[in-house]
């Protein structure tokens, strides 16, 4: 029952988010601010996790395939496809759900508690649209870019972890990266990135926007934003995989 209540409120809340902005300039300024906050603010963590995603994948597969008949250049191919199809979008977005999602829920929830949202409502501002739409637009622009960076850096991470340590040669790794490339895998990466970006932002903002009570409830909303976003990302990941590979 509770689930249906939240689902209904979440869906009808979108009607408010996608109404005509009062002033495009203000929304544009807010979107730019969010692009900076989400993009630049998350770049370092995305770079760090991406290097290690690629590095671990390369080392792990070398260990699994060592001594088999499979040629070493296959490792480059496996690292490339694993990062593009799965690890870059899913891992990056799970981390962003923790970093960006909790931040959005706390920011909007704090505004609710300090009566900032009421103040804007009384001024005549459509608060759902003004507070959520710029975040949503910024996420849909910047998160796919971060995922692309992650995919690129992960492949570089695989190289750095394996070639200098002598697991295989630079030529073999690059040959693997260039082998059996299927462009639709990149499409799948972007479908995932856009879907996950939407989930992170809308779920987190929903949690913050409807928070009631004090700091304990705000903490809970922030945690729920991360938990629900992460679960929905994994469910969406499975559905997209089924739909696009079936």
């Amino acid at each position, binding site marked *: 029952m509770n689930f249906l209540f939240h689902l209904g409120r979440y869906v009808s809340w979108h009607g*408010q988010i996608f*109404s005509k902005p*009062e*002033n495009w*300039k*203000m929304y544009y300024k807010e979107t730019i601010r969010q692009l900076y906050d989400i993009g630049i603010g998350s770049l370092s963590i995305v770079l760090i996790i991406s290097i290690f995603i690629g590095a671990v994948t390369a080392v792990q597969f070398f260990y699994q395939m060592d001594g088999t008949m499979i040629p070493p250049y296959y490792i480059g191919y496996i690292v490339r496809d694993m990062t593009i199809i799965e690890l870059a979008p899913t891992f990056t977005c799970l981390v962003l759900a923790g970093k960006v999602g909790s931040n959005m829920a706390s920011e909007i929830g704090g505004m609710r508690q*300090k*009566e*900032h949202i*009421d*103040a804007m*409502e*009384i*001024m*005549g*501002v*459509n608060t759902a649209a003004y507070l959520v739409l710029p975040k949503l637009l910024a996420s849909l622009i910047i998160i796919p870019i971060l995922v692309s960076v992650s995919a690129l850096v992960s492949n570089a991470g695989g190289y750095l972890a394996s070639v200098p340590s002598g697991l295989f040669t630079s030529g073999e790794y690059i040959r693997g990266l260039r082998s059996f490339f299927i462009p639709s895998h990149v499409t799948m990466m972007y479908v995932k990135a856009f879907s996950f970006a939407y989930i992170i932002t809308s779920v987190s903002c929903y949690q913050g926007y409807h928070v009631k009570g004090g700091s304990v409830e705000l903490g809970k909303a922030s945690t729920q934003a991360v938990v629900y976003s992460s679960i929905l990302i994994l469910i969406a990941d499975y559905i997209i995989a089924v739909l696009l590979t079936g």
Partner: protein
Amino acid sequence: MIRVQNIKKSFDDTQVLKGIDFTFETGKTNLIIGRSGAGKTVLLKILVGLFKPTEGHVFYHDLDVCCLSKNDLREIRNDVGMLFQGNALFDSLTIEENIRFPLDMFTRKTLKEKRAKVDECLERVSLAGINNKFPSEISGGMQKRVGIARAIVLNPKYLFCDEPNSGLDPKTAITIDALIKQITTDNNITTVINTHDMNSVMEIGENICLLHQGKLAWQGNKSEVLESTNETLHNFIFASPFLKRLKDRALGIKS
């Protein structure tokens, strides 16, 4: 003028307002008073449209705002200004940006014109020159005045103040009251103040509505307070022994 008609409001099984009829007059400072839990804030939130009443109507002149959709309600909100109990100033914006926010959102004025309007409002509340400070860098009394400046920047027809004197020393509270009274008279607007500050009642109470247990217990003005025989009013206004002694002395009653 704002008229409320048979306003009732319930939250789950609790009925907070039990049928209020009252008229808040234009050009006067209208006070909603009452003890904590009497339903003052709920009534104020119904007046500004943050809550929908369970029953009854709120008329802004002849327009019933309870029947309006959210979007239609937003249309008339440019005529409404509100000072919140906690000021609700945006912490990450400067004082100027806070006051300019409604202008940025709803007007097509140039930056120069908007800045001139901000300066005019700040001067009106005697805070000229603090444009670049942040809310955290000024005192509580100054924050209240900035809140008033932001509330009046779009020249509203209706001004709502939720406990404007809470957390202020008596001297500053008197200044805030005087400022609200002056703005009401100068701009000929309908001002509704939710308070339980006795000084406010006796200084600026031109049209008072006393709520008690969700009902209208008394209405009148400051000069009628002392003469009234309403027990609920007297229990509320002269709750402290000190004020009771003062009243008795004023009326020549020996204790």
